[in-house]
């Protein structure tokens, strides 16, 4: 055997071995996309304005505190929009002092001074950073929640500036998951000043109809058996970030509840607050709704329960979100796709059947039409699919419905490459060339057509990959892989098989 041939065989075997190793067993290695397998696909938009809003509130609090501390006069601090606020009613004589305080305590803000007013705008760089951070934090939180919920192989990734894609294969309880992801889960405990009352007017009556400076109005959660409105202290006694552990527990009537323990620091604060306020009600507030407002009967240390007429499932979900932490910003669903397992398995069953039927039809045709040379084509075709699956598995890419379209195109072009070569060989034979000469010319002359047509299609697929989203990307990647494989199998492997099976002295060939 010629030395060159030996290397070619070795190369072929290595490529095939690698691809088989990557792709087998098919069931575990080739991941079906959600459209074939069933599951949930969600696109979330992070309301990044929320994080700017929080930052703005904090800055207003910080500055007004400093203004008070330094006895600087101001009338009010007004938030114009998230990331922009103004402090008005300044005393013109204190302007240098004001500038000093502002420079020291608001370094992230661009300022515009008028004699009696300063306007603050968040610096563009800082704003972009905050928005970016809030998306990343949201992504992490969503990931934690999904992990706690327990989904095999979830895909959670960022898309564009402020979107997150969540793919949960095999999940069959979409509403629960959607709620679980979306709940902001900001948990606070606040002392109740008054309430519950039926409406705000009767609630505020003892306070002369206005909300006291240090208090705010929060609605009870009707679903939890607490309609009505409450007046609670603005400053939280403890918050969700003070929690150390949460687990399932029960209240005194044996109803499901969330049992928690606090961090040492949180525990000390809780003890202080409860000790000083025995007899008052302490509201447990989740996402700005009061879940329950039990009376403080005794000084409570570092553990307690959250009660609120929960079902077992609701307790489990609350535990998940408390463990995973609060979302830094709200989210909206831009897109949701739920493919039930019944439909998914139906598509796979039918898709497999159609695919098999197609491949068998094409293979039989090639065998009938090209006889022994058809065997070459069939083997080249099989190798092409093996390589495709191997590379797909290597990149951990999913096989989707559009991906199957790409596969069909690739198989079609793989057959075509062989047809081009075989027809050319026939032409050369008809023109009187001997067998080895005709094979050699056939491959050489067909090569430019195969190369140009495959490369043109690859060029278009690359642009599709660049601009496409989701399924179209899947189509493009399947196509690119199998076209590259195509040039290799049709030109290199098919040629190799002729070289091995047809001796240099042959005078006849089956084609």
């Amino acid at each position, binding site marked *: 055997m010629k030395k060159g041939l030996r290397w070619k065989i070795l190369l072929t075997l290595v490529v095939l071995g690698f691809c088989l190793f990557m792709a087998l067993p098919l069931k575990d290695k080739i991941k079906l996309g959600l459209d074939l397998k069933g599951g949930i696909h969600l696109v979330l938009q992070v309301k990044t304005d929320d994080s700017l809003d929080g930052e703005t509130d904090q800055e207003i609090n910080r500055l007004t505190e400093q203004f008070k501390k330094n006895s600087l006069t101001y009338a009010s601090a007004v938030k114009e929009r998230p990331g922009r606020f103004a402090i008005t009613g300044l005393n013109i004589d204190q302007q240098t002092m004001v500038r000093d305080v502002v420079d020291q305590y608001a370094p992230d803000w661009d300022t515009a001074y008028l004699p009696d007013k300063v306007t603050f705008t968040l610096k563009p760089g800082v704003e972009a950073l905050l928005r970016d951070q809030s998306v990343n934090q949201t992504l992490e939180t969503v990931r934690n929640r999904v992990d706690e919920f327990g989904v095999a192989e979830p895909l959670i990734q960022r898309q564009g500036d402020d979107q997150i894609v969540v793919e949960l294969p095999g999940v069959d309880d979409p509403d629960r998951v959607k709620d679980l992801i979306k709940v902001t889960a900001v948990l606070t405990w606040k002392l109740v000043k008054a309430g519950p009352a039926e409406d705000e007017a009767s609630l505020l009556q003892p306070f002369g109809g206005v909300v006291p400076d240090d208090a705010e109005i929060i609605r009870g959660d009707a679903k939890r058996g607490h309609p009505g409105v409450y007046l609670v202290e603005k400053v939280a006694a403890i918050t969700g970030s003070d929690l150390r552990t949460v687990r399932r527990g029960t209240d005194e009537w044996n109803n499901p509840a969330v049992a928690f323990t606090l961090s040492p620091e949180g525990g000390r604060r809780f003890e202080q607050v409860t000790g000083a306020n025995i007899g008052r009600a302490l509201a447990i507030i989740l996402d700005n709704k009061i879940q329950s407002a039990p009376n403080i009967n005794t000084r409570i240390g570092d553990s307690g329960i959250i009660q609120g007429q929960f079902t077992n499932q609701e307790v489990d979900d609350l535990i998940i979100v408390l463990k995973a932490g609060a979302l830094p910003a709200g989210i909206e669903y831009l897109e949701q796709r739920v493919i039930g397992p019944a439909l998914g398995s139906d598509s796979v069953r039918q898709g497999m059947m159609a695919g098999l039927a197609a491949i068998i039809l094409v293979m039989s045709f090639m065998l*009938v039409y090209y006889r022994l040379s058809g065997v070459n084509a069939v083997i080249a075709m099989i190798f092409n699919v093996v390589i495709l699956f191997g590379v797909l598995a290597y990149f951990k890419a999913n096989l989707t419905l559009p991906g199957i379209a790409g596969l069909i195109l690739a198989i079609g072009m793989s057959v075509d490459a062989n047809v081009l070569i075989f027809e050319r060989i026939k032409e050369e034979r008809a023109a009187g060339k001997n067998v080895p000469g005709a094979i050699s010319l056939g491959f050489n002359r067909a090569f430019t057509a195969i190369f140009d047509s495959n490369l043109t299609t690859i060029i278009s697929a690359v642009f599709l990959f660049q601009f496409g989203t989701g399924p179209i990307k899947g189509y493009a990647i399947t196509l690119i892989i199998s076209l590259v494989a195509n040039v290799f199998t049709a030109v290199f492997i098919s040629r190799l098989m002729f070289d091995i099976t047809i001796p240099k002295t042959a005078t006849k060939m089956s084609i």
Partner: protein
Amino acid sequence: MEIFKKTPQIKFLKYKYIALIITAVIIAAGMVNIFAGRGLKLGVDFGEGALIRIAFKDPVVVADIRQLLTDIGLSGSSIQEVGDSGREIQIRAVEVQNAQAGESLESHAELSNKIISALKGTDGERETAQGLIDLNTVDQKTLAALFEAAFPEQGTALTEVVLKARNSESVKGAFSDFADLSKAGVSAETVEFLKSKTFLGKLNILSLESVGPQVGADLRRKAVLATIWSLIGMLVYIAFRFKLSYGVAAIFTLAQDVLITVSIYSFSGREINLPIIAALLTIVGFSINDTIVIFDRIRENQKALRKMPLEEVMNLSLNQMLGRTFITSGTVLLTVLALFIFGGSVINDFAFTMLVGSIEGIYSTIALSCPVVLFWQKWFPEKRRRR
């Protein structure tokens, strides 16, 4: 085996004007239909609203469902029966009133909830109040917990058997009767247990897709960008490897492939979704492949037959490649036909597009690509190189 014993001698380019007229007529009819007639229906991927597939416990009548939807103000929804069981329905709904900008993000999600609760009506309320679980919609975790309480250690296995039966081809997502379980090989004991703890609800959601306006618009923009750039990329490459006139002809051929297929598609009343775009791209892929194969042969023949006029060379090349065109396109047709017949409802639209496109692709390669090269070279003659 041979399709043609001898290279055929068909004068394809004699019919170039007829070909152009046929193409123009089909495209014109399609455009009239798209812009003035039934229009091109954008599916849920590109538009907004919701697409829901539902399996019912008992056969339903489309007219009844239309009535239910009309009652909640969604008379514009399209309702289709899927398969031949009479139990599977697909609903495509678009929100009628335009919600405020702030709310519109979520309205598409609420739309589907609205439809499902309208279809369900009061079904199952009594049973749920008694603490029974709907076996047709129950999720894996809940069912496993239910089984685990009665049959310790067997919960997961039993759940798997029951859910597999629910997903099977005959049940299709919703049991009609507890007898379906026995037929699927679930033990009598288990069936009895399920009868005491569960009930069969009216329907099960097979799939639910809802897309907000933002995503649809974004997808449309990206699809257009991707198409334009890949056409430019191909044009540049072919112009570089062949001549500009060939590149222009290839792009022209591709454009008419897409236009003709879309025109015919518009008459079928089907919706355009992402898989349809993939099918169109695939047709473009096959067509460019065919076209380049012909151009390659023309390029080669021109080198050998310098004296022959281009039109003759083209005729010769087309005839030489005719066998190959038929074989290749024939195998593609076989594949697509298999998909169309056996592929099932989910890929039926896709297979239909491919079927139309691959038949049309043969025509465009043979009848259209070469004339465009001739016309282009006539209108923009290349400067002859001096000897």
